[in-house]
């Protein structure tokens, strides 16, 4: 196996820009001493993936069917609406090995499940509570403010839904 210090094309089994930016320390503050030691990378042995952009209607079985192509699945946690406890379009897939998780990033991330392009991201591991949406209305934050209609994810953003409802109440429906 060729182990090159730098590959000649990008690797798809790297953590996403989202993960990196979320965990970035504020590097620009001058007062703070830089940390003495590099903290161990929580992803270096990660076996869990965050899976996003699922349809609300995609079932565990469908996810299982696709993701088990990269290895046996140890655990599958569906993302739920905090209030309704219904699927809200994401999940965590945990494999037995780190390699299976990396292979999943390479071979499944960015392909379709239930006719939607899904997103996969290496995750340091599921913790209780993370299965719930963090949006105001219970689902994922991204579903609050979406301007396009997405039938697989509850139509328009929910914040706009609320606004539309208010408007309809004020001005009468069918405007």
């Amino acid at each position, binding site marked *: *196996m*060729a182990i*090159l*210090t*730098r*590959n*000649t*094309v*990008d*690797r*798809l*089994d790297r953590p996403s820009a989202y993960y990196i930016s979320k965990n970035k320390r504020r590097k620009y503050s001058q007062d703070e001493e830089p940390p003495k030691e590099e903290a161990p990378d929580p992803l270096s*042995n990660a076996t869990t993936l965050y899976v996003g952009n699922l349809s609300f209607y995609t*079932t*565990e*079985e*469908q996810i*299982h*069917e*696709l993701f088990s*192509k*990269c*290895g046996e699945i140890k655990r*599958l946690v*569906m993302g739920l609406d905090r209030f309704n406890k219904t699927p809200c379009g994401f999940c965590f897939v945990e494999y*037995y*090995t*780190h*390699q299976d998780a990396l*292979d999943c990033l*390479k*071979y*499944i991330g960015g*392909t*379709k*499940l*239930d*006719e939607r392009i899904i997103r996969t991201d290496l995750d340091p591991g599921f913790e209780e509570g993370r299965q719930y949406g963090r949006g105001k209305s219970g689902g994922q934050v991204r579903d609050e403010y979406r301007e396009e209609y997405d039938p697989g994810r509850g139509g328009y953003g929910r914040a706009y839904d609320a606004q539309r409802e208010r408007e309809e109440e004020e001005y009468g429906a069918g405007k």
Partner: protein
Amino acid sequence: MADYERRHNGARGGRKRRYREDDDYDRRQRRRYEEPLVAKVRRQLLTIAESAARRADDDAVTIARSVTENFENEELRNTFIDIVLDLTLEQPLKIPFLATTVLVVNNLKSEVCSEVLQKAVNLLGEYLDAGAWREVKLLLRLLGCLQCIFEGDGIFPILDELFSRAVDLQTASSDDVLGLELVKIILFTIPYIMASPATGFEQQASALLEKTDVITSTPHALVDMVNPFAIGDGRTNAVQSVISLLQSQLQGESNRGWELACLPRPWKGVRINEEDEQPPAEFGPKCPLPEISIPNPVRAGKRAIYPEVHLSVYADQDIETVPPTSDIASSLLRDALVDTINILDFNRIATAKYLIDVDCYFTPHTFVKRATPFDRLRDIPGDRPTWKPEDVAVDAVFSQLFQLPSPEHKLVYYHSVLTECCKIAPAAIAPSLGRAIRFLYRSLDTIDLDLSHRFLDWFAHHLSNFGFTWKWSEWVDDLDLPLNHPRMAFITGALDKEIRLSFAQRIRGTLLDSYQSLITEGKEKDTPDFKYLEDTTPYANEGKELMQLIRKKATDEEIQPVIASIEEQAKGLGVEDPMLPSTDAFVTAICFVGSKSLSHVLSCIERNKERLLAIGPKSPAARRQIITSVMEYWADQPGIGINIIDKLLNYTILTPLSVVEWALVDKLDAGAILAKTHVFEMVSATVGKVTNRLRQIVAARTQPGLYEPQLSLLDETLKRENSDMQSLFNVIEDRVVSIASGSNDELMERGDGSGNLPEDEIIRQWGQRWLRAFRRMAGVEQAFIAEAMANATPVGTTAPPPENNTSAGDGDMDVADADASAQAAS
């Protein structure tokens, strides 16, 4: 400057002047960004030959000039050297172009070239020591393309030495495959030497070919095992291994003066100075090839080696769209593409791009223009090639998807490459895939069973990425075939897989009327009926009661009386094993209560684990009843059923043997079950679990630094589990062999008893294909264990005295740890 000022301040309506008026400031703002030279050379080198719009030979000269004119720039020099070698190892399609760049560098400044050679040879030495044979092959290819700048015979002595190692290995054992791999490397290096600017090596090449002939012409015992066609039909009976094919292709080339038409000769277009009309006669001074030592004996690498055969899904068309096996292009194109595919598994999008661009990396006009429709090929005059670049690319991916016993990466990687190809160039790729699908579909009755499942799995997965559109109308006539015909099995199996990735109603919508009956009503039901709700079902009341208890998460004490009541009644009815009806009711109730999702059924199983675990030891028949109950409850959606079976195996509620016996003893149905795709999936997944575990134990047993008493402990575990695995394979063999030979009693009693009905023949063939697939699995595992154990620390080895025991493992690694470390190492 005046122009600039005007544009800056005037056009926008007199933007206010900045607080600083000195020109320096403005000049700094204005200066165009200039890419640092290192970055520029890096970019040029990385993308060499990628665009048909640029001349790679010109780029080679530009890069070489930048590097040699700034040769004192160490960073630039090192970047150049590193990227040449990285690309050689990661993007083999570019090797002839990289070599050309190095040749020009030698012409301009041979000191820089010596550094490249030294580093390449150092690297080659490392890979030779490690037994990384693909890397060895690619570095030798680079050196082969540079043959003209070496003194004497250049790299021929290395090839000769490799050959003598191959002879040693072959003489030592007739089963040897490593020697064949070395011969393959030699044979794949020769054409690149002969297509390089080097001249006068015909004699060395022929001499080498004469020697390799002895090895390549001896058929290897394992070639049959990797033949993609299980059942001979005359056409495919005799398969040739890749090396014997290549041997005869090379002999043909040597008779034709080494034409090697498809290999690019970018060096021919090199003009060192603009006014030159010819490439240089000599690419700089000659130098001795730095010394290379080949370990003796050579080492096998990490990956098990098997003979390879050349499979093309475009082999039987009336117009050639890929090179025929009589043409050396078939081997050279395939080899370079397959390496590209397997090396770049970390970026499938890049892989797909290089595949689509395949025509950039070979002699111009080797192929027809991209996306030329198949029907147009007829209009091409006879003397021009009709090879479609898409077909050649797709063919290479299929060759890996259908590699036996298994390809380098997970199958889903090859799926994803085809998906990306289709995304990048749908109009070009989709029709090629269509013809590949048709070929494979036509081959279903002869192709290896494992491969027909790979085809099925890929087909359904691929369609799921493209809206499930397929021209089902093509296969309408086959709907009249018996259900157990391989084509019907494929159609029903594929629809089932599609449903598993989607849902029944959606798939129904993609099908013609004539297919609608294949999507039964039951497949559209999220929750299959609970049979105990029908009062006519025996033990209906108890079944309902159990269901209520499981639903309200009752304790085992509450469940026991109901189970006892069923068994009591069964005894009264004279049922031989009363645990069967009680297990049926219990497990069916669990399936029903847990039908909402996999996690629901898993938590039901978890809550009732103790009772489920207790069933098997009391009655093996009742253990198999668990499988029957699950599979009957999910009869319309067998995918969910086999998923549950898989989890029950993990809980050790089921044993692998029970699954195999269920399928091949209880439910064999005179062999009819062998035609069911989900049964093969279930049995092979079960066998896969066993072989996986055994490999983990082998990894634990063979870890370095392991001493007594752990050594004996693990050795015993290994022996025990290995013999369990053997008996599992034996059960499969015993059961299937009678079907394959047609001597199964039930089979013979069916129909008119003659065993000569058309369906009987179909079932016999299913039997033959099952037999072949599982014999191969058994063979692969035994070979793996033998290979791994050959170098293992022998039992009885005790730890060396403590002062020497520095960094060795502590020896108490258990199987789970071994698994983790094996994964980390791979």
